[in-house]
């Protein structure tokens, strides 16, 4: 009885959470301009999107979103991994405390504050906003999550492995590449994926750091679109595809780990 109740509760909650997404999925198969009007089944929106006929502005927004996410996630992963190794090897003192404390700030700060604060810095320094500013800001709010994902891996690692590699004649760089990085790989990968997720999902930070120029990401593009009152219909198939790809990856990953745990 309790089990039925628990299951019903979770499934109803899920249904509510997924209702708007189902709406997007369903209405990606009709051509109507307005979300929620059905004008018959059609795959034209998918065709337009995939053939690049959804408009220059949308194509640019997709390109910028991918570019920013990849650059920010790559830099954050490298920076964050080095930082985690550094913090892990620091004495417990003021410096270590200061770095871990500052590392938490971007995670606690609401996006709008992160965005405005970086915007004010660029204004103060007289540097124009744009792609560079957006990427810097994304690196700033993504790296803490990489550090947080790599840290547990370092705790689990045998501290003597690195010393052993050095004793056996490896240079510090070789020891890093051949000993430390392989041990940290899973944390780095989850940090990288999280960084991409956060970067793609971000709206407020990008809005304040992109300036008035032409750099639009999907978020800011949708915002501008919604303010104008219309929503580019091709956004529906775009996010349907993204959603389904991630869903498949998630299920695949879960099946794989479930298999691994049952094998052990």
């Amino acid at each position, binding site marked *: 009885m309790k089990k039925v109740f628990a299951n019903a509760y979770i499934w109803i*909650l899920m249904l509510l959470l997924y209702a708007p997404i189902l*709406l997007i999925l369903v209405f990606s198969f009709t051509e109507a301009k307005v979300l929620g009007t059905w004008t018959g089944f059609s795959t034209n929106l998918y065709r337009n999107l995939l053939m690049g006929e959804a408009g220059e502005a949308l194509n640019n927004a997709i390109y910028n979103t991918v570019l920013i996410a990849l650059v920010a996630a790559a830099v954050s992963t490298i920076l964050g991994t080095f930082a985690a190794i550094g913090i892990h*090897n620091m004495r417990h003192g003021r410096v270590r405390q200061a770095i871990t404390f*500052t590392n938490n700030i971007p995670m606690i700060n609401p996006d709008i504050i992160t965005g405005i604060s970086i915007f004010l810095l660029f204004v103060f320094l007289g540097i124009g906003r744009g792609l560079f500013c957006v990427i810097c800001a994304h690196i700033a709010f993504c790296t803490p999550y990489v550090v947080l994902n790599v840290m547990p891996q370092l705790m689990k690692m045998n501290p003597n492995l690195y010393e052993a590699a050095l004793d056996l004649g490896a240079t510090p760089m070789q020891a890093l590449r051949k000993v430390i990085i392989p041990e940290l790989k899973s944390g780095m990968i989850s940090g990288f994926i999280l960084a991409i997720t956060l970067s793609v999902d971000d709206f407020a930070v990008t809005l304040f750091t992109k300036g008035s120029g032409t750099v639009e990401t999907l978020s800011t593009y949708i915002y501008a679109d919604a303010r104008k009152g219309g929503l580019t219909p091709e956004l529906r198939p775009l996010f349907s595809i993204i959603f389904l790809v991630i869903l498949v990856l998630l299920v695949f990953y879960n099946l794989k780990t479930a298999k691994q745990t049952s094998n052990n």
Partner: protein
Amino acid sequence: MIRYMMSKILANRANWAWPYAIILTIFVIMPLVMIVYYSFQDAEGQWSLHNFHKFFLSTDSVNTLIYSIGIAMITTILCILLGYPAAYFMAKTEYRLPKVMASLFILPMWINVLLRTLATVALFDFAHLPLGEGALVFGMVYNFLPFMVYPIYNTMLKMDGSLIEAAQDLGASPRKVFTEVFLPLSMPGVYSGIVMVFMPTISTFALAELLTMNNVKLFGTLIQENINAGLLGYGAALSLIVLILIGLTSFFDSEE
């Protein structure tokens, strides 16, 4: 020579954190200093308390802050009420919910938040429900629920099961076990959830704009409008107020 020095510096792995420390200084600490700096500058670039005067003398602004705190409290409480049982059912193996369930809570985050919100607006239209405060709270809860479920769920997973068994062995009733042992042990997760939900809700602006057809202003809207209008000093002062509130709530978090 330089190579030798470099290898000396790199050999001490504590030094590997320095590049990040520099980035943190430039892109986290300096920007926060900028918020403080601009908030104490008037339009002529003189040091003054003008922006704070303006805020406390403007009933509209103060009311917006109080209203936002109210909305944020309702959102946070609803997130706890809905999210705590969800985390509980997923963390307890006796309910046999598949492990993938917890990931399904964050999966919607992959659909752009504004697009999801616009879909919520379309749902409200479908059901002939009016947009406004109700829609705003619904949209906020919908958007922030994963941030409440996840920390609670993680805390419950890491919980020391032997403490609960000990309570049972010592004869506590299931209700007692829950209220005296399980609930207190899960509170750190709830506190993290509050920090993750409360402040972002106050400073939301785009969600409020879309869900209320621009009829309801939250504190975030006020900040955004002022920054957009070029009133950097006033916008910075409002941001500083948010930062002070964050300081207060995270103090509440670290108390535990």
